[in-house]
């Protein structure tokens, strides 16, 4: 499946770059050759499902392409954390885990390179499974079973492409990271791989390798804007496409991006590993148009709002959870709480993020947007802080611009939120060095914020 996409590009232009890292560049032909060799090794060893841990993005992509060539089910683990990888291997029954470096000490580990062997004729795959772990903000991650063919259709490859340079601003264990990879493969574009998806590493890669297209989270974009404010060394990159997803977007962020990148097209994507990629909004306003509730019967994803929560019914989502039967194509919760304002559906928080202040339900996102709009605020996270009097109070952690006066900033935030009902006003404001961020997404927990 993925190998066919690559072969199609090789036929047209064998030397086209597929992967660019700080150290090297691989053409489509290079990746096809390596993936064939690894596929031969997987087939010879009878490996039909495996984990991928602690592998470089280049090795990970080779392993994914190789798996799809023989119909094996790969699963990329989050973070390079060996004890966590061991747990995941047990949890998901992986007797093989592919790594980049030898001697990891991980029991089922094999290096990607050790599997490479002279490629014989591959049998061709009848299935195209891939297991994607959910981000698991609460407890253990769940495995969602997908098919490459469906994921590829949702990644909307574009035949007119071929000269674009996308940045990999997600990890490849994430649904969104795989979407970017598939879009690049399907279109014949080039993927620039930074040393890590952290904004400052990303900016170095953007400037060194002429990135034109980026898909990333609002948190990533907020910090990138901050890095580019003032007079950045290397100037502001000339981006053509800005895609935002994975978290709720605010108007203030969209305005900031439009100001800095007036020539870029800006799209917001609403997607999840469970119901798939479903909406792309390009009208420059935060939230979804109300019209998504009235989609025609043949649309792949439908939405409705029940008790303030968005529910989705999808034919392009996962097949089902790992170890469970295929999921029915009926209505399922998204975990996203919304409010309808005029012709717009606004995201107000996740069901797990609602703050109960003395019996009043408070949603973090509208407050966060208010705080983030205060001059001098780089990023903000609103969450519930346990309190003996009211159960919880609204707390906010704020990253301030460099050299800002902390007391003045706190006072400005109090003024900006004074018009909110008393239960919604932040009662505890901390100026922190960084927010609790995982995978370039803010975790609204209040722990891990470094003061």
């Amino acid at each position, binding site marked *: 499946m993925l190998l066919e996409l690559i072969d199609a590009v090789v036929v047209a232009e064998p030397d086209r770059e597929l992967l660019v890292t700080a150290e090297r560049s691989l053409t489509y032909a290079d990746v096809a050759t390596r993936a064939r060799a690894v596929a031969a090794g997987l087939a010879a060893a009878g490996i039909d499902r495996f984990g991928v841990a602690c592998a470089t993005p280049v090795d990970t992509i080779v392993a994914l392409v190789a798996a799809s060539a023989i119909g094996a089910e790969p699963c990329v683990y989050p973070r390079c954390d060996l004890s966590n990888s061991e747990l995941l291997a047990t949890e998901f029954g992986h007797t093989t885990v592919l790594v980049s470096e030898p001697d990891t000490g991980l029991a089922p580990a094999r290096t990607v390179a050790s599997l490479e062997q002279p490629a014989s004729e591959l049998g061709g795959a009848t299935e195209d499974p891939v297991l994607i772990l959910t981000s698991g903000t609460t407890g253990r991650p769940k495995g969602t079973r997908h098919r490459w063919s469906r994921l590829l259709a949702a990644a909307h490859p574009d035949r007119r492409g071929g000269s674009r340079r996308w940045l990999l601003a997600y990890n490849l264990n994430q649904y969104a990271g795989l979407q970017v990879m598939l879009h690049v493969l399907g279109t014949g574009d080039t993927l620039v791989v930074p040393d890590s998806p952290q904004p400052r590493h990303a900016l170095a890669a953007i400037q060194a390798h002429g990135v034109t297209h980026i898909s990333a989270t609002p948190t990533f974009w907020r910090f990138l804007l901050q890095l580019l404010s003032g007079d950045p060394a290397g100037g502001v990159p000339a981006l053509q496409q800005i895609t935002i997803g994975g978290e709720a977007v605010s108007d203030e962020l969209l305005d900031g991006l439009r100001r800095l990148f007036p020539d870029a097209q800006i799209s917001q994507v609403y997607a999840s590993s469970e119901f798939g990629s479903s909406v792309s909004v390009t009208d420059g306003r935060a939230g979804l148009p109300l019209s998504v509730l009235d989609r025609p019967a043949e649309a792949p994803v439908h939405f409705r709002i029940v008790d303030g929560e968005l529910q989705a019914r999808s034919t392009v989502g996962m097949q089902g959870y790992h170890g469970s039967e295929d999921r029915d194509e009926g209505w399922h919760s998204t975990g996203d709480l919304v409010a309808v304002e005029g012709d717009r559906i606004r995201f107000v928080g996740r069901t797990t993020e609602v703050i109960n*202040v003395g019996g009043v339900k408070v949603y973090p996102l509208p407050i966060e947007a208010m705080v983030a709009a205060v001059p001098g605020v780089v990023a903000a996270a609103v969450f519930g802080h346990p*309190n*003996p*009097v*009211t159960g919880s109070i609204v707390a906010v952690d704020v990253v301030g611009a460099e050299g800002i006066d902390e007391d003045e900033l706190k006072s400005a935030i*109090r003024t900006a939120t004074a018009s909110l009902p*008393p*239960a919604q*006003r932040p*009662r505890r404001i901390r100026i922190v060095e960084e927010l609790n961020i995982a995978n370039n997404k803010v975790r609204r927990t209040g722990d891990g914020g470094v003061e």
Partner: protein
Amino acid sequence: MFRAIADLLSRREGDAEPPKISAETAIYDDLEMDSLEIAELSVLLEDEFGSDPYSQGIVPQTVGELVGFYA
């Protein structure tokens, strides 16, 4: 401690002149603090002094009792 309370009260809208505070000042009757202001006060005390009376089930009625908790 007095300053912490005064700071908190000075943020109230409309209150041109924050009330004068002494050890005898009654938190509820004189200052008319509502539960959210008490909640905010408890967080402030927790952050400033590492503990607060409310978490231990103690509800001081006057500013003096509050100060006494830390004595």
